[in-house]
């Protein structure tokens, strides 16, 4: 672990020199930068402290599923985190479009690698549920469980601006779909795809901070589009825009 940490630290120091020269103009050492709230940045909240955010996620539908129609599906996005130890914290996320919702619970372990570079490993389990009752169109519902092992790297670009890059594997654990009184279940563990998230977190106004970024998911299934009954056994691209106010 120490060797890995040293390697990552060296790489990050080299990259950091190239990327954030401007930040040194502040003439202030990163050690003196205050702890800032961040939902994605891989730094645990202080033990016993909470972090919360509310925002929206917009998911653009892949043309393979919605064909000539390209829609950006909005979802309300809540995040809450609680520090357990100096490095360990709980993370929970709730996304909803009212007719379909997703609740996730995960555990993260985060550590600084240098003054500016941070790393975390996480494991999240999410359950999603959707139900549609529309006359002559839908009498359908579905729910499922997915899990997301992840690694995040965070870099303090400046005193206020933080960049986080998160990579996740998406693994399906369970899927149940019902139309009328007929249900089918897929009860197999399968790698569904992977995703990369790029998030900037910074102050916005009145001591509030924001998270802004994109998530690029390449997956076989996306819970938000369960009602389209995707039959393709190939990864489709689901770009997401993420915006959140850190409360």
């Amino acid at each position: 672990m120490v060797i890995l940490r040293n390697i990552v630290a060296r790489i990050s120091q080299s990259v950091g020199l190239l990327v954030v020269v401007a930040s040194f103009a502040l003439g202030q050492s990163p050690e003196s930068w205050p702890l800032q709230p961040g939902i994605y940045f891989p730094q645990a909240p202080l033990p016993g402290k909470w972090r919360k955010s509310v925002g929206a996620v917009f998911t653009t539908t892949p043309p393979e599923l919605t064909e000539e129609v390209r829609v950006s599906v909005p979802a309300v996005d809540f995040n809450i985190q609680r520090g357990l130890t100096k490095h360990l914290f709980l993370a929970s996320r709730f996304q909803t479009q009212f007719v379909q919702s997703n609740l996730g619970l995960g555990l993260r372990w985060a550590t600084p690698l240098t003054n500016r570079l941070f790393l975390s490993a996480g494991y999240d389990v999410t359950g999603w549920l959707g139900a549609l009752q529309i006359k002559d169109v839908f009498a359908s519902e579905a729910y499922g469980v997915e899990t997301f092992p992840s690694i995040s790297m965070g870099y303090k670009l400046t005193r206020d601006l933080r960049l986080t890059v998160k990579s996740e594997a998406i693994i399906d654990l369970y899927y149940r779909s019902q139309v009328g009184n007929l249900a089918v279940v897929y009860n197999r563990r399968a790698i569904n795809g992977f995703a990369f998230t790029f998030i900037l977190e910074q102050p916005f106004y009145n001591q509030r901070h924001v998270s802004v970024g994109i998530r690029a998911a390449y997956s076989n299934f996306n819970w938000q589009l369960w009602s389209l009954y995707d039959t393709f056994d190939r990864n489709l691209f689901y770009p997401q825009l993420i915006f959140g106010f850190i409360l």
Partner: protein
Amino acid sequence: MEGVYTVSNGASQFGDQAVLKWTYLFTGTDTTHYLSIFTGTDATYFNLEGTPEADSLVLKGYWRKLVNASIGEVRLILREKHNGKLQLFKGSLAPGDTLVVDGLYGDKSAALNNQLTLTYNRPLNPKPFSIMAHRSGGRTSDLLPASENSVEIIKLASRLGATGIEVDVRFTKDGVPVLYHDNTLNLRLIQKNGLTGPLEDYTYQQLSTLVRLINGEKIPTLEEALETVVNNTSLNFVWLDTKYIGPMDKVQAIQQKYRQKALLAGRNLRIIIGLPTTEAVDSYKALANKDNTPILCELDTSITRSLDARIWAPRWTLGPQTDEVLAMQAEGLTVFVWTLDEPEFIREFISQNHFDGILSNYSPVVAYYHYIEQQ
């Protein structure tokens, strides 16, 4: 030779059962026979042609999984198991002999180096059932060798397991009914040419000259499509999906013309006008004469009854609706469900045995589950 076969070598790739079914294509006075194989994994179909080689019948072609891009070549030979010994098929089977179709298939590499062995198990499920291919055969997004709603995919539909097709009818600016699904010309369906906007903004001459479907075909007229069905295929059902808003008389006239042509050719071909919306229902109601104009209603049972439609076709996402289906069938109606692509639900709908047919982008899956069903 048609039947349900047990897959021994090759089961990890194609599943443990396969359906073998002959189809044919007429070209003038020529008939080309094709052997299709449908398996239970990943919407797989085989497209094979038989050629005599030395003293054996060789079946050559390709296999394809519709759910992904897997494809490969295949070469099979007909054999018979006689007294427990495998030998070349002589043309007829003695009692106790079993037909075996075996050979090699390729997958990622072009080389045919994987063994495939199919052993006859039982006959196909004989129950009449409509296997209808969506968009004349299947979706362009499933990377089929022909574009959706093209003449070429109509010719392929039987080999994909279909006994009938659904086609999407729109009108050009100058009033020619053509086959096209989407509201606009777009790169999902056509090759890049700079033209955009509704198909209805272009004349047939413009579309014919300037637009090619994604695999290079022309957008066919409804008449060209039905001419192909009557003259080249053994399909017995055409569902004309009403994508246009406005008068229905031209489509009615074409439907009646090709019904007569089919009858003259000795074909029992049903050509039905589909009514998916209240606008389409209004267009149908506005027809001056509704004689010999069979319709299919996708709306609820009361509207279907009020129109005196002979076919009711609810969405599959409403579930099996067993009580409603049985009630409509008791009144003499045929009941189809659309557009069902999810393999597990296809299996369940077929095993419940209530519907008279399924419209699907995955007709090989419907064919597989229908033909293996044991009554």
